[in-house]
């Protein structure tokens, strides 16, 4: 049942604990005497639960390779990408950058190897290039597609 009561617009806020003061009191009073709004509230609660319980994905381990690579590429004086301007033009900088990031990243992998299975990197390989040939990020050739009708 769909309610046409204007109070219904606040049902999600109530559900999220984001309704306070007189608005909250008024809505709760309305709910105690309105079966259709009560039903609607329950339906919204289910939607919220389904989303909250939906599986999550962790970032693929590829980032530990591609991110330092992308930084190095962006810092390289040979590239004329606008990003390069953020970094120094000296060859020393990319070297330091890559070293620092690689160190931090390897340290992190070492630390979290036990509780971070490689399944995500495997599943990602199925849809992207093999990890050894992942090219540095190129914003101009992003292939993000519009999945929304």
């Amino acid at each position, binding site marked *: 049942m769909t309610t046409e009561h204007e109070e219904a617009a606040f049902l999600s806020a109530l559900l999220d604990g984001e309704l306070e003061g007189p608005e909250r009191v008024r809505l709760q009073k309305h709910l105690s005497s309105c079966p259709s709004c009560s039903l609607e509230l329950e339906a919204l609660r289910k939607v919220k639960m389904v*989303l909250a319980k939906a599986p999550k994905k962790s970032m693929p381990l590829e980032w530990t390779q591609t991110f330092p690579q992308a930084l190095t590429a962006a810092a390289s004086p040979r590239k004329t990408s606008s990003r390069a301007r953020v970094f120094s033009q000296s060859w020393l900088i990319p070297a330091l950058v890559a070293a620092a990031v690689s160190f931090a990243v390897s340290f992190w992998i070492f630390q979290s190897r036990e509780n971070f299975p490689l399944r995500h990197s495997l599943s990602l390989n199925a849809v992207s290039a093999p990890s050894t040939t992942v090219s540095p990020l190129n914003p101009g050739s992003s292939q993000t597609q519009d999945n929304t009708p």
Partner: protein
Amino acid sequence: MIERKEELLDPKRFQDDAARSFRQVEFVALLKNNGDKVYNFAWRLAGNEQDAWDLFQETLMKAYSHFESYDQSRPFDSWLFKILQNVYLDERRRNSRKTVASLDAPSPISGKPWEEILSGTDLNPLERLSKEENADLVQKALAGLPPLYRSAVILCDMEGLSYDAIAEVMDCPLGTVRSRVHQARLLLKKAFEDLSDTLSPDKQLQ
């Protein structure tokens, strides 16, 4: 060649380089703690792993190049969410010139008014689905939402952000967050019902 040697010996320059390296490590450390949430947001927003990966990488680069402007007293995840959301919307706008896509307009399913769409509230079939089926349905249902509704409801229900935090990420008033979350849930409710109807009959326990 000689010039380069002088650069190397410049102590000021060396100090700058060291500071920069320190920032890199700092960035990676923050990413280590927040990256999963941000990647999950990218995945739910983009709808598939390939696009999520592109979006995530673009976000990291953008975030890194603006790292100086990050206010350390604020949550790093919200800062990344905001950048990611903007990268996503920019990308969409670039691509949507070909299509007629409105970012915020309520797009009632099959062109019916909201009131008509939202009758019937039986989500029980959905609750009986396996995890895999559920995940697939959730992704499909989310894909059908206008992007700003999708963002709001993902941040609220999947990332656990408060309305205040969402308002900051989405750069909009609190009332707008409230309305986007609510409308998103109403549309999702309908989408879940429709999608669970399309399941094979043995999946639909009565």
